[in-house]
């Protein structure tokens, strides 16, 4: 492959790819994202390859391993183009039938279709599934169409045309103006206006400027950045190239979590291909613009998602944040002006340049434009990635797209913003989702994790969970964060273990205020949010733990006990056999009992009982 030396080279190559592709060729798009791989997608891919070869169908059908389609709950997923037939929960066993029925013949296999939960009608096409048809997938939509390891796929769908436009039809100032006009705000959680950041960095004195893509997605329960880097890495790289051109940078970094091996692999492949095509390197497309990108893998420290800690980590230092009296756009990586944006923010850039700020700013609310990708997880029927316009309500996301709470349980709260965010109760479900409204509710947008909790989730336990996470991840630089979080965690542990006392709630609030106000970086400043927001909305649960020594959700071990319902127990012995401490006794076919002295409350008996006879009291 020779490098593109001009705009025409790229355009001609694009035409060549499109012309060489048969629009009627059947494409089986198999989701090869980490989630679907965990379901066994790789074995399915191998089975398809074998079957296609065995039946000699290479000319008629192509297997494409794509990024995340979104509907993770129903994985492994395939979509058969051009008809967009959507098969879910596919297994190796189905492969031969799919090839014979839906490729060789023109039939649909009803067993593999998604069934509408209300009408009970099977749905054939992907875009008619309720999970998908309420979304607006302008950023993540291409994930299910392209092979992320093949740059030609990206070029064929118009990839790198925004770079062309930026280099040949715009100048750095007009690019920044366009991004400002689109009012793109940082998707990493802060919500800072991207165009303003770019402008400050561009204007900062110095001959070297850096751009960084923050892919250190550490919020537990959030994986949209992972899926974008895995599924459409070139869109992120293109965004970085445009940003680098606007800012005047020739060197970029992608800082990616090492826990995401597939994302690391795919972004490295994408960079290599872009270099081979001359889209990265010296004199890109024959212009004066030169730019290259390096990948740095994280070391497993949550705090490195903070910009100054991340930059320290790239420099080979321990990831401790520093005070930002001088912003990183003025003095960041190696003390040079540095512009850092999150994966999803970068992926928005090509779209804004191609379609224009006027088009872009029609989507969303007054102060939050565009779409946001959320990972909808926890106690929800349709777990997966959803991309929705800003301003959609929480209720629409959780109930219309997410299909509500499973097993007939009652919704209790939704946690947004990761460990920095908070829990939002049912009464605020009709709140439109945007940066400012979520902050008003004591939570935040964060990077986009949305964890649904039902009545069997204990809110004190959840608060304790997040503080446990944060106390381990605090870098230790600020005393308030290092010691304050630990003290709050100890108080919460006391409460969940039945040692809570009057005044604990007030002490938590006071400590929370100090930690938030006297810590240097975002980790400490937002660390009390999970506690403060649960106290704000679920104070009664805290009080039940403290005053009545009762866990209303029946989660906190010290406050519950397991008992066997003598009416329901059939004496099958399953619980007795599975009990790890021999705390259960009883004769065969007669009701069993649990010895409370021996019981360690592991919950196995409750889980294995087929007659629902083990109660939690």
């Amino acid at each position, binding site marked *: 492959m020779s490098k593109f030396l001009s705009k025409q080279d790229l355009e001609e190559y694009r035409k060549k790819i499109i012309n060489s592709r048969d629009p009627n060729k059947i494409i089986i798009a198999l989701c090869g994202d980490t*989630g679907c791989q*965990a379901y066994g997608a790789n074995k399915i891919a191998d089975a398809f390859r074998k079957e296609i070869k065995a039946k000699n169908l290479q000319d008629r059908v192509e297997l494409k391993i794509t990024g995340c389609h979104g509907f993770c709950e129903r994985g492994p997923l395939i979509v058969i183009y051009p008809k967009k037939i959507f098969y879910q929960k596919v297994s190796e066993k189905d492969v031969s039938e799919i090839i014979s029925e839906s490729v060789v013949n023109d039939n649909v296999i009803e067993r593999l279709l998604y069934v509408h939960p209300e009408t009970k009608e099977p749905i054939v096409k992907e875009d008619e599934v309720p999970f998908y048809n309420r979304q607006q997938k302008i950023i993540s939509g291409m994930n299910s169409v392209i092979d992320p390891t093949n740059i030609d796929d990206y070029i064929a769908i118009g990839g790198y045309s925004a770079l062309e436009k930026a280099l040949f039809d715009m100048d750095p100032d007009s690019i920044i103006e366009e991004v400002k006009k689109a009012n793109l705000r940082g998707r990493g959680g802060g919500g800072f206006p991207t165009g303003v950041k770019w402008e400050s960095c561009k204007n900062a004195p110095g001959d070297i400027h850096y751009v960084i893509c923050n892919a250190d997605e550490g919020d537990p329960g959030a*994986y949209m950045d992972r899926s974008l880097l895995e599924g459409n890495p070139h869109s992120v790289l293109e965004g970085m190239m445009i940003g680098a051109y606007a800012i005047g940078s020739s060197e970029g970094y992608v800082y990616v979590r090492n826990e995401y091996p597939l994302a690391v692999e795919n972004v490295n492949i994408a960079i290599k291909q872009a270099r081979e095509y001359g889209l990265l390197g010296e004199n890109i497309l024959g212009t004066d613009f030169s730019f290259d990108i390096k990948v740095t*893998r994280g*070391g497993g420290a949550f705090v490195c998602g903070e910009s100054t800690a991340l930059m320290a980590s790239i420099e080979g230092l321990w990831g401790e944040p520093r005070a930002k009296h001088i912003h990183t756009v003025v003095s960041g990586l190696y003390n040079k002006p540095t512009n850092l944006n999150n994966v999803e923010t970068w992926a928005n850039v090509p779209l804004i340049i191609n379609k224009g700020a006027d088009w872009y700013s029609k989507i969303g609310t007054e102060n939050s434009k565009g779409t946001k990708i959320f*990972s909808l997880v926890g106690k929800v029927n349709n777990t997966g990635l959803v991309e929705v316009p800003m301003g959609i309500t929480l209720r629409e996301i959780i109930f219309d797209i997410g299909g509500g709470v499973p097993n007939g349980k009652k919704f209790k709260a939704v946690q947004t913003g990761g460990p920095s965010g908070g829990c939002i109760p049912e009464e605020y479900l009709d709140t439109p989702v945007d940066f400012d409204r979520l902050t008003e509710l004591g939570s935040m947008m964060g990077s986009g994790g949305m964890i649904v909790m039902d009545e069997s989730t204990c809110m004190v336990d959840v608060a304790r969970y997040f503080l446990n996470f944060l106390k381990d991840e605090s870098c230790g630089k600020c005393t308030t964060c290092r010691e304050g979080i630990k003290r709050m965690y100890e108080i919460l542990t006391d409460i969940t273990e039945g040692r809570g006392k009057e005044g604990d709630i007030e002490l938590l609030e006071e400590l929370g205020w100090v930690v938030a106000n006297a810590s240097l970086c975002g980790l400490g400043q937002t660390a009390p949010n999970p506690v403060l927001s649960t106290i704000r909305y679920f104070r009664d649960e805290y009080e039940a733990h403290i005053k009545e020594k009762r866990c209303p959700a029946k989660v906190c071990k010290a406050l519950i006990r397991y008992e066997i319902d003598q009416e329901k127990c059939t004496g099958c012995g399953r619980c007795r056999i599975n009990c790890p401490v021999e705390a259960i006794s009883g004769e065969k076919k007669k009701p069993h009992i649990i010895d409370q002295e021996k019981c360690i409350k*592991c919950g196995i008996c409750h*889980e294995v009982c087929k007659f629902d006879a083990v109660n939690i009291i």
Partner: protein
Amino acid sequence: MDFSNIDRILDKYDRSPSGIIRILQDVQAELNYLPRDVLKYIASSLSVPLSHVYRIATFYNAFSLVPKGKHMISVCLGTACHVRGAPKVLEKIERELGISPGETTEDLEFSLETVNCLGACALGPIVVVDGEYNGEMNVSKVDELLKKIKQGGEINE
């Protein structure tokens, strides 16, 4: 001790002190942990104090100063896995192996660790064994899983 493989890694990153995290990551991947002698060798090769190398090696969770077991069991404790019962799964594995997260069994067969979200939340709770994902775990599936690993190990030998 032969440091030729360490030299290879050092050369890959131009023996630059700013490449130290990447160097340690590669060493960790190759040796499974960061032995004391190797850290000393890296410090002198990069002309940085040993304390600097230790500070990096102990700051980041990815590094271990003690040998890891043959099989690595990672229990995801991300929020989605947590609300779906991951702590119970972890407790069960701890009980069965007799070790806590961060520890390795005496026979160096198993190491146990917890991770904060692997981004495969739809399948939670998740337990990853030697890179292979096991989704929708519960306490009763743990026995089966451990049995599978032990048998797999025997077959490989």
